[in-house]
């Protein structure tokens, strides 16, 4: 009983304990706040970079082995992938890079675009040949086509995006493309406009040579994926048409796979597909031919995750400093309370009891500090946007520049597990640092203290 009583009494009597409590409070609060914001950032970024990517991406390393039995036609690969019960949908597509130039009267405009040193992003666009129905199953393209455009124009029939309406007066050989809405806007395109796509293709039959290819297409409409890069530099067209246009040696470059449950099956399916497809000679067997979407965006996500971990480590140092404070305060207290320790021993306290009394002071420090930290940290994380806005307007400086990031509010996600771990960490830290002075208190010679006033 005296452990509780005395530790609380000492806590109250010695105001220096407030420094320890304050340190733990700041450490716990800051850790929760920053980690919540970083988690929010990570999730928002993950959501926005996810975009058109499916769960898994299979990209065979074509051209590495000439004697390969891996077919350049995706049919067998698709069949094998779809046979897996965990797979919900799979689609093959062919990606290529090309230049796009608008046809027609506005030659000066084209001239300006093509000769402008600042329009680098327009000189190369990505053309993606897809099988629309498959692609709809495996990615969010259907949504992107259906979404009300901000600067673009929807296609006539979202379910058959490459069908050319009669009013565009297409010749039998002409085919249509669907353009990202920002690209559409940048090039000042209209539906029905003709554009020329021009690119180079390696001529595999004569090593080292490249062939130039170009063809005219009709702009059928736009898509809006909400992912900046895609909307600015991607064009969709029918895969068979792209193969024909390029006279491509391969019929596809990637197979996109959507799983029923990515969280559960993602990693295992990835490994198993890599193995089974290699056995069936549908892949070359190099590692990385099957990747999860996260690996695809690995660098960006990794950077944010890295930053989160680094922040965590740096802020843990605050807790460490708080631990040192607890250590210093308790060490001082043990020296100061030498006589009390002697008295308690004479009255029947065991060394263990004495040690526990001092450990409990650290326990109260941690309890009060961590509770305050958890409450204020969580509150701050939930209200960070409002807090930032009021701070910004009060001091007239912009703390969070919403133009720089893709989000218009500061994202923040408070998760129970990290909060629990941080609070636990604070306890462990405080108790560990208190252990040394508490142990010293238990091993003091009580007589030394009792002999003198």
């Amino acid at each position: 009983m005296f452990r509780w009583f005395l530790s609380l009494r000492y806590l109250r009597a010695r105001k220096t304990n407030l420094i320890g409590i304050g340190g733990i409070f700041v450490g716990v609060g800051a850790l929760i706040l920053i980690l919540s914001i970083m988690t929010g950032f990570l999730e928002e970024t993950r959501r926005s970079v996810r975009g058109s990517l499916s769960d898994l991406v299979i990209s065979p390393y074509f051209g590495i082995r000439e004697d390969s039995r891996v077919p350049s036609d995706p049919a067998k690969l698709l069949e094998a992938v779809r046979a897996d019960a965990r797979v919900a949908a799979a689609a093959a597509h062919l990606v290529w890079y090309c230049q796009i130039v608008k046809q027609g009267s506005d030659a000066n405009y084209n001239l300006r675009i093509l000769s402008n040193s600042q329009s680098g992003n327009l000189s190369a666009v990505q053309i993606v040949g897809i099988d629309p129905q498959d692609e709809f199953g495996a990615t969010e393209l259907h949504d992107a086509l259906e979404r009300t455009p901000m600067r673009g124009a929807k296609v006539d029939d979202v379910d058959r995006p490459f069908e050319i309406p009669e009013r565009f007066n297409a010749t039998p050989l002409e085919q249509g493309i669907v353009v990202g809405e920002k690209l559409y806007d940048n090039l000042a395109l209209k539906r029905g406009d003709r554009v020329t796509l021009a690119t180079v293709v390696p001529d595999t039959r004569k090593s080292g040579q490249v062939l130039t290819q170009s063809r005219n297409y009709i702009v059928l409409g736009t898509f809006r994926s909400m992912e900046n890069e895609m909307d600015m530099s991607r064009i969709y067209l029918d895969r068979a048409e792209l193969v024909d246009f390029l006279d491509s040696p391969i019929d596809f470059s990637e197979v996109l796979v959507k799983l029923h449950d990515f969280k559960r099956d993602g990693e295992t399916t990835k490994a198993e597909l890599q193995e089974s497809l290699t056995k069936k000679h549908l892949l070359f067997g190099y590692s990385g031919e099957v990747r999860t979407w996260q690996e695809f965006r690995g660098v960006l996500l990794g950077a944010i995750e890295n930053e989160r971990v680094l922040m965590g480590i740096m802020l843990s140092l605050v807790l460490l400093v708080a631990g040192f404070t607890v250590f210093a305060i308790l060490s001082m207290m043990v020296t100061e309370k030498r006589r009390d320790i002697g008295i308690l021993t004479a009255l029947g306290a065991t060394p263990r009891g004495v040690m526990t009394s001092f450990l409990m002071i650290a326990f109260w420090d941690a309890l009060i500090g961590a509770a305050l930290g958890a409450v204020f940290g969580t509150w701050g994380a939930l209200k960070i946007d409002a807090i930032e806005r009021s701070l910004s307007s009060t001091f007239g400086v912009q703390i969070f520049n919403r133009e720089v990031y893709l989000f218009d509010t500061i994202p923040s996600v408070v998760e129970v597990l990290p909060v629990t771990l941080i609070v636990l960490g604070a306890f462990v830290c405080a108790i560990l640092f208190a252990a040394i002075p508490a142990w010293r208190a238990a091993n003091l010679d009580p007589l030394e203290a009792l002999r003198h006033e």
Partner: protein
Amino acid sequence: MSAIAPPTPRSVSAPALLSARNIRKSFSIGEETLEILHGVNLDLHQGEMLALTGTSGAGKSTLLHILGLLDRPSEGSVSIEGQSGWDLSIAERANIRNQRIGFVFQFYHLLPELDAVENVLLPAMIHESQASFRRRRRQHYEHARELLAGFGLGSRFAHRPSQLSGGERQRVALARALFHDPAILIADEPTGNLDTHTGEKVLELIFREQQRRQLSLLLVTHDERLAQRCQRHLVMADGRIA
């Protein structure tokens, strides 16, 4: 004090409450060994008042601490109510100090953060768990207040040691020592820090309680006159009982 019967007959028949045999205590300072107690034998019977006098450095306090199970002798044994104190576990020994021995020190040794009642309650707090103390809280507080009131401190319950006079502090310390109704009261110069008048009052209280409770009192003092008031008077010199 003349009314107190001589203890000699009882000491022959009844076993001693506290018995020390061949107590030696030595300290090593560098290569030298300093022997403070050279084989002390001592018996304290129930209800007996024993005074221990001697010059400074004679080893009185060291002997007292060994008898009170606070300091381990280099040799010899201390038995309290038949139990060999220094063969017990730390917790058992602590329990004997808590339940069977009451200490009164020259410098009172009250905890400065606690008020008078709380200081008196310390033995109970140390002995009991949180739950059991809470259950008997009222009872304990009443007992503590009764003790203090009995010592003339009825208006001093909530006062901290710093707000009490020396005599009052020593009375609080006496109440604390008697809280668990111990069998043995060890008093180390209880009046050494008090003026004659106050000291006298504290002594009256100690003797009164000794009589009332049939305590075995071991009183260490410089004061020969005071020692004469006890039934038995031992004089220590050079680590021996003369």
